[in-house]
């Protein structure tokens, strides 16, 4: 393997990226525009349904009698608009609020039972009431939750404590002014971003197919074949240059996504792993590109034929996939991009460590697919595609 030859061929391909407007658009500008478009369109949309996720911490559950607090929780649950989940402690509830899993946390005080009983024992004598406060924490990032949850809870509390009685002007149980908590909100775009990383690399199929078909048409492949450059050196240069292109794409997509508010839930090692997975995946697309160039009679035909590989990978294996039917999602398991998206979702959305079985299995599947596609592509192109 002559490094000088491989190196100049890689440099040649990278110059093509910068100087050929078609390649520059497909490899660099298109993913950037796509990320900006999807980021700005879906970045503000939450993935939660129309109901509000409310965590309830019942600190009045220790004593013998706590019917009032159970009754209050029951009434909260009955409202269709609140999805109530009880928590054993304030810490765990607050943790979920910060992570964006909840939009509100309600803290029922330990003397809730006592306060309710004191009211009903002496409804007209406030001096005998035990006064207390129900604490409410709200996700400051959820505009709707900050507006809607407080009045709903106030209404349910009034029905719970005072029943059919007119609500008194003085009350034994007050609602605190809600504390606003900054939650790490997961948006629709956060779900889509891992798929966009894979999506960008899929277009390498088209650029490789075009490039090989064009170099074949113009006689450049034949010409290179008259030099001492071996097929192994040539294919190594293709693999390296396309891996570099994939890394540039992922970096561009990541920067653009970050600029429109995407914040990955992973550390540096997760990011490096995501980059590695996309690089390996780029080899798969080099293989698909070679298969396309073998079949296509011209560079124009190669562009169209490339979609045979691009479309299934795009619809079944990237950001589009999670919005599809269960059948289509199951079919996605047969395209390599599904495993790239799944691995990056695990790493950057679910916060999985790089050594997690899901990530490693996905990497293994992508690696096997890439090696197989590349070897098949090289073999077919050498046998049928060079002429």
């Amino acid at each position: 393997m002559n490094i000088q030859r491989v190196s100049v061929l890689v440099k040649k391909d990278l110059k093509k990226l910068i100087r050929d407007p078609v390649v520059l658009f497909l490899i660099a500008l298109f993913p950037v525009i796509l990320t900006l478009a999807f980021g700005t369109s879906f970045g503000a949309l939450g993935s939660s349904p129309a109901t509000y996720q409310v965590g309830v911490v019942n600190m009045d559950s220790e004593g013998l009698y706590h019917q009032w607090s159970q009754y209050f929780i029951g009434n909260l649950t009955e409202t269709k608009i609140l999805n109530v989940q009880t928590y054993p402690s304030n810490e765990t509830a607050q943790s979920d609020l910060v992570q964006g899993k909840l939009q509100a946390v309600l803290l029922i005080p330990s003397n809730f039972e006592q306060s309710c009983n004191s009211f009903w024992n002496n409804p007209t004598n406030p001096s005998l009431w035990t006064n207390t406060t129900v604490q409410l924490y709200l996700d400051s990032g959820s505009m709707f939750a900050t507006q809607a949850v407080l009045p709903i809870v106030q209404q349910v509390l009034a029905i719970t404590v005072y029943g059919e009685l007119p609500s008194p002007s003085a009350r034994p149980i007050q609602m605190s002014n809600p504390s606003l908590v900054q939650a790490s909100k997961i948006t629709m775009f956060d779900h889509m971003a891992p798929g966009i990383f894979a999506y960008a690399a899929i277009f390498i199929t088209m650029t490789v197919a075009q490039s090989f078909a064009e170099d074949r048409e113009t006689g450049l492949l034949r010409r290179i074949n008259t030099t001492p450059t071996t097929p192994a050196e040539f294919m190594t240069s293709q693999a390296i240059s396309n891996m570099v292109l994939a890394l540039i794409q992922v970096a561009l997509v990541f920067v653009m996504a970050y600029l429109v508010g995407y914040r990955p839930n992973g550390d540096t090692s997760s990011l490096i792993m995501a980059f590695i997975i996309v690089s390996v995946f780029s080899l798969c697309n080099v293989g698909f590109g070679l298969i396309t160039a073998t079949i296509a009679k011209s560079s124009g035909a190669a562009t169209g034929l490339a979609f045979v590989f691009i479309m299934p990978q795009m619809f079944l294996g990237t950001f589009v996939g999670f919005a599809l039917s269960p059948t289509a999602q199951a079919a996605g398991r047969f395209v390599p991009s599904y495993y790239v998206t799944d691995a990056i979702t695990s790493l950057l959305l679910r916060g999985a460590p790089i050594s997690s079985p899901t990530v490693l299995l996905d990497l293994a599947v992508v690696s096997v697919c890439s090696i197989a596609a590349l070897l098949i592509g090289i073999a077919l192109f050498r046998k049928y595609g060079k002429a």
Partner: protein
Amino acid sequence: MSDREKTHKAAIVIDNLTKKFEDVTALDGLSLEIGKGELFGLLGPNGAGKTTIINVLCGLLEPTSGSASVGGYNVQEDSERVKELIGVCTQETAVFPYLTGRENVQLFGNLYAMPKEKLRRNTDELLQKMSLTEDADRRVGKYSGGMRRRINLIMALVHDPEIAFLDEPTVGMDPQSRHAVWGFIRELKQKGRTVILTTHYMEEAEELCDRVGIIDHGKLIALGSPGQLKEKFGVRNLEEVFIQLTGRRIREGL
């Protein structure tokens, strides 16, 4: 005796070479020897088999039968060695349009693993000889057809090959560029390089070649120096030699 020893004095030995493409016989039992340092012209109309011979000698095509050696190496068994010896100027202008003229030349120099300094020196020298120095740093996509053909030629010769295959190197060139290329080819001959030139310009062959081989329908129908052939057939030029042999003009098929 090995091919290498047998061809001690011959740069190229072609022995009973046949190449068939399905029903078409492109080369039909062709035999030929070309000496070291010889400037040899392969003449014939389009489709006669000239480019097929070059493609077999460069290792791009496998012969159906027969054998060929270049620089003493069998083209099928030692194609890597053969490729180190040769430089090929293809008939089509095969250049990377997004690279500059200099970058195209240096890319091919690097594919022959040339030392950096020698590559720089040869590139500058050849660009100057072909009057392309001023345009060397422009992208080839912006070049005129004639300029592309000149860069195409430089790319084949930047590594100073022992044996140069020039397949129709002056097609489409203006008269000035053609004469510049002729001067350049003569210099190669003076440096002791073996040059195999295919052309259908009879005046080009007469002007440059030590010997010519006239090919028709994949067969070698005449071989000798331009002077010998003209004398043998009692004609004024090589075109008339071809007419005498085949009954038609060499450029009829163009």
